[in-house]
């Protein structure tokens, strides 16, 4: 009995240390979360990313698995974020006619909206007394996670924290957007989808694509624009803001 128990423990130690665990757990938990999401009629609060993160974090805590040993397996999924950013070229290319016709409005909305999200985060965080490296990690949170990490590093933030903020911003926007848009009278699917893609990046776009094809297309367009604009403009705009805030 005792040997059986200890060999089970040994087996678990082996599994938890091998990349197999992180990869398998991520995929299985996500599939279950997605099944739950469709069972709940895709209610915003049942978001599969949110529940996967919560369940996996609980699983790590319950089994005493460290994040690095989990990530040894999960990195294979994580790695695909890079090619996924490149893949945004495809929905942008598909909407190239509209992009050409409406680009002044779209670029303006993405730029102003993205700047409003970043500036309000930095200002609110500063008003609440958050430290400077946290503010720098908050600024790129509307840009999709892999790019947000790079931008945060440039700004003197903490890349891993920036990625978490980006994911949380995606979730918050996805959960509340419907009610906010209804309350403000933002009815056009283009505007609803575009705002979700601009502010809540990939997670918001994934939601928009499920709700309405026009909203989804504009969300993908916004996601691509925001990746380019955010990476280009945030390193220019945020450092002066941070300097100005620390002087005041």
């Amino acid at each position, binding site marked *: 009995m005792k040997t059986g128990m200890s060999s089970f423990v040994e087996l678990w130690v082996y599994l938890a240390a091998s990349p197999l665990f992180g990869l398998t757990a991520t995929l299985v938990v996500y599939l279950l979360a997605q099944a739950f999401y469709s069972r709940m009629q895709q209610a915003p609060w049942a978001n599969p990313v949110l529940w996967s993160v919560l369940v996996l974090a609980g699983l790590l805590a319950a089994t005493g698995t460290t994040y690095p040993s989990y990530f040894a397996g999960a990195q294979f999924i994580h790695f695909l974020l890079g090619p996924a950013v490149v893949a945004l070229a495809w929905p942008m290319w598909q909407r190239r006619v509209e992009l050409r016709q409406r680009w002044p409005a779209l670029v303006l909305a993405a730029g102003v909206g993205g700047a409003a999200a970043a500036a*309000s985060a930095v200002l609110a965080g500063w008003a609440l007394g958050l430290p400077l490296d946290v503010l720098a990690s908050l600024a790129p949170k509307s840009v999709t996670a892999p790019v947000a990490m790079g931008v945060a590093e440039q700004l003197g933030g903490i890349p891993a924290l920036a990625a978490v903020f980006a994911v949380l911003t995606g979730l918050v926007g996805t959960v509340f957007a419907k009610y906010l848009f209804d309350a403000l009278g933002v009815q056009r699917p283009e505007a609803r989808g575009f705002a979700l893609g601009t502010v809540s990046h990939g997670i918001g776009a994934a939601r928009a694509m499920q709700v309405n094809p026009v909203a989804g297309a504009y969300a993908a367009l916004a996601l691509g624009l925001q990746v380019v604009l955010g990476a*280009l403009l945030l390193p220019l705009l945020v450092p002066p803001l941070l300097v100005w805030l620390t002087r005041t």
Partner: protein
Amino acid sequence: MAASPEGASAPVAAPVATPVAAPARPGLGLQGLAALLLCQSLGEVLARGLNLPLPGPVLGLLVALALLSWSPVRASIAAAAEMLLQHLSLLFVPVGVGVVTHVALLSQYGLRMALVLLLSTLVGLAVTGLLLQALLRHQPPAELPTVNELDSDRP
């Protein structure tokens, strides 16, 4: 495109059913993935070599956008891109779980961070949504996603 409801019940079938012009050549998705990785690599080389302020994948996006006008690669890039973007939300999970590594920071500032995230996200959504709706007010509603020889059969 992203995690679809069908994807939940038939996770294996979803990427296979990638809506590319039939008959899809086998190996199209792999060629596309190779093309995306090549674009990303080129982006990394450009970013480092020229000391550009843009991250490698973003430059890769721009390279891919230029490349898509060249029809021989379009179908394969489309196949790989549809597959990746269909499961986009899955790709955020490993990073999201990283929240466990910042427990100290979160327990100290968690409530304030949550407040900041909520407020700034709502501000961003409201500004973007209202602004674009105002800018498009004289324009006709958007049509459904463009139909071309490679477009998906999204509903």
